[in-house]
C-alpha cells in the first residue's frame, strides 16, 4: 500500500482511538462511556491492521469489542443506579489527573526514545501459526501459568456469585434486628427456609 493510503488510515484511526478515549472521560453516562470505549478499541484494531497484524486485529475485535465491552455493559446494567451521573468524585480529579499525566509523559518519552528498528518487510502470512507455535514452544510456562490463573479466577467468580441464600437470610435478619433495636441475632434461628413449600398443593390426586 502506498504512503498516502497508509497515512490516511493511520491518522483517521488514530483520531478515532484518541477521540473515543477522550469521549470516555467527558461523557457522564456510563453506558455512553462504554460505547465510546468500543469505538476506541475498534480504532486500535484498525491500527493493528495497518501494521499487517491481521490476527491481533481480529482478536482485538473478537475479545475487546465482542466480549469485554459486552461484559462491562452487563456489569453496569446489573449495578443499581448505573445511569447516575458519574462526575461526582470531583475532589480526587486533581491528583488522579496528575498521576495520569506523569504516566503518559513517561510512556511517550519511552516511545519516542526507543529505537524501534522499523521493519519494512512483507506482511507475515501465517501469524496464527507463528503465535501458536511460540506459545506452546517458547512460552509454554507463562502460557500454562496464565491458564491456571484464569481457571482459578473462573472458579473463584462462580464461588462468589453463588452466595448462599443462608448468608442473605442471616444478613437480612441481623438488619431486621438492628432495625427493631434488638441487637445481634443468632444465625441459627434464621437458617430455616422462610416459607415451607406447601406439599399438599403439589400432590395431584393421582
Amino acid at each position, binding site marked *: 500500500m502506498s504512503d498516502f493510503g497508509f497515512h490516511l488510515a493511520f491518522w483517521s484511526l488514530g483520531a478515532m482511538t484518541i477521540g473515543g478515549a477522550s469521549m470516555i472521560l467527558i461523557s457522564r453516562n456510563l453506558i455512553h462511556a462504554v460505547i465510546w470505549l468500543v469505538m476506541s478499541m475498534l480504532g486500535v484494531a484498525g491500527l493493528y491492521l495497518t501494521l499487517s497484524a491481521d490476527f491481533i486485529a481480529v482478536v482485538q475485535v473478537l475479545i475487546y469489542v465482542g466480549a469485554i465491552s459486552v461484559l462491562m455493559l452487563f456489569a453496569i446494567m*446489573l449495578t*443499581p443506579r448505573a445511569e447516575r451521573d458519574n462526575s461526582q468524585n470531583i475532589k480526587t480529579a486533581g491528583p488522579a489527573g496528575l498521576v495520569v499525566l506523569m504516566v503518559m509523559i513517561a510512556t511517550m518519552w519511552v516511545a519516542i526514545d526507543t529505537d524501534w528498528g522499523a521493519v519494512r518487510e512483507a506482511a507475515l502470512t501465517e501469524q496464527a501459526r507463528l503465535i501458536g507455535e511460540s506459545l506452546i514452544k517458547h512460552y509454554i510456562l507463562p502460557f500454562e501459568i496464565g491458564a491456571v490463573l484464569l481457571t482459578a479466577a473462573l472458579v473463584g467468580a462462580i464461588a462468589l456469585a453463588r*452466595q448462599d441464600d443462608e448468608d*442473605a*437470610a442471616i*444478613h*437480612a435478619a441481623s*438488619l*431486621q434486628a*438492628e*432495625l427493631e433495636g434488638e441487637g445481634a441475632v443468632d444465625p441459627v434461628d434464621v437458617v430455616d427456609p*422462610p416459607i415451607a413449600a406447601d406439599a*399438599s*398443593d*403439589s*400432590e*395431584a*390426586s*393421582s
Partner: protein
Amino acid sequence: MTTADDTRLAMQGTIEALTTGDGSEPVVVNLGPQHPSTHGVFRLKVTLDGEIVQDAEMRIGYLHRSMEKLAEERTYTQNIPFTDRIDYLAAMSNNLAYCLAAEELLGVEVPPRANAIRVMFAELQRVASHAMANGTFINDCGAWHTPLFHMFRDRERVLDMFEMTCGARLTTNYMRIGGVAFDLPDELLPTLEQFLADMPENIANYEALLLENEILHARARGIGVISPEMAINSSLSGPVLRATGVPWDLRKANPYCGYEDYEFDVPVGEQGDCFDRFLVRMAEVKESLRILRQVVDNLPDGPWLADVPLHARPEPGESYARVESPRGELGFYLVSDGGPAPYRFHCRPPSLINLSALKEMSIGGTLADAIVTLGSIDIVVGEIDR
C-alpha cells in the same frame, strides 16, 4: 424526612431485597393491554425478579360493555344477540345457555329436532373453539403460527357451516327461546358429512406434529400446575378443571338438550399442567365429533321452534341454567319481575372465573411460563369483561 427515616427506609429495602431474591430489585412489567399474547385487551401486571414471576395481577375491564345492565332494558328475545358478543368465539354455546335459562323461566318445551340441532351446533362450536384455543396455545409456546393456521382451517369450515345456516360466522344469534331460528339448510348435512369424514385425518396430523414434540413438552409439561383440590376450590371449570383429573362435565352431570341420548366420554388429565389442558382439548374435539356423528345419524324430523310468543312476559321468578361451553361452566342467572325484560340478567363467565387461580399458577415460573399458562386457560376477553 429525617436522616434516621432515610436510613430505616434503606434498611427495609435491603431486607426486602435480601429476602426476596439475590439482592436485586424486582421489575414490574405490564403484559397488555396491547400485547400479542393476551388475546384481546387483557392486562397482566407481573412483578419479575430476573425472569421469575414473583407476583401477577390482572387488570381487566377494557372491554366492559355493561351487558348486564343493557339486558335489563331489552326483551328476552332481544337479549339473544348480546350473548353472542359475550363470548364471540363460542357464540352458539352462549346462545344456548341463555335460551335454556329463558326457557326455564317461561316453561317452554323444546321440540326434539330443535334439541338435536342445538347439540349439533354446540358441538361444532366446541370443535371451532378448541381449534382456536389449541392453536393460540401453541403460538404462546412460541411456534410460528403453523399449528394455529392448520387448526384455523378446521375452524373456517365450521364457521362456513354457521354462515350457511344462520348467515353469520361469529355472532350467530341462531338459538331462539323454544328452539332455533331456522331449520337446517339442505346443503348443511353434506358439508357436515364431509367435515366429519375429513377431521380424523386432520386430527391425526396434528397429533403427529405436536404430541411428541420435545420442545412443546419442555415448555408445557409441569408448567402452571394446579391441584384438583385447589381447582375445585377456585371454581375452575371446563378443560382447566378436567386437566387436573376431576371428571366434571355438565353434559354428563346435568344433561341438557338430550345429551343423555348420545354416547360420548369425558377425557380427564392427570397432572393439571398446561400440556394436560392441551391434551384434554384435543381429546374433547374427538368426542365432539363422535357426538356429531350420532346427531347426524339420528336427526329427528319435526318443528324446529316451539310456539313461543315473541312478546313473552314470564311469571316472576328466577332461573339458573348452565351449559358446558368450550371454556367451562357457562351459566345464566335470570330474574323476572313479570315484566317484558329481565329484572336481572347475570352471566357466569367461565373465562373470568378460570382466571381465579392464574396468580397461583404463574408465581415461581418464568415470564414465558406465565404466558403459556395464560394461553392454556383459553380466555376470551369479551366474556371476562362483558
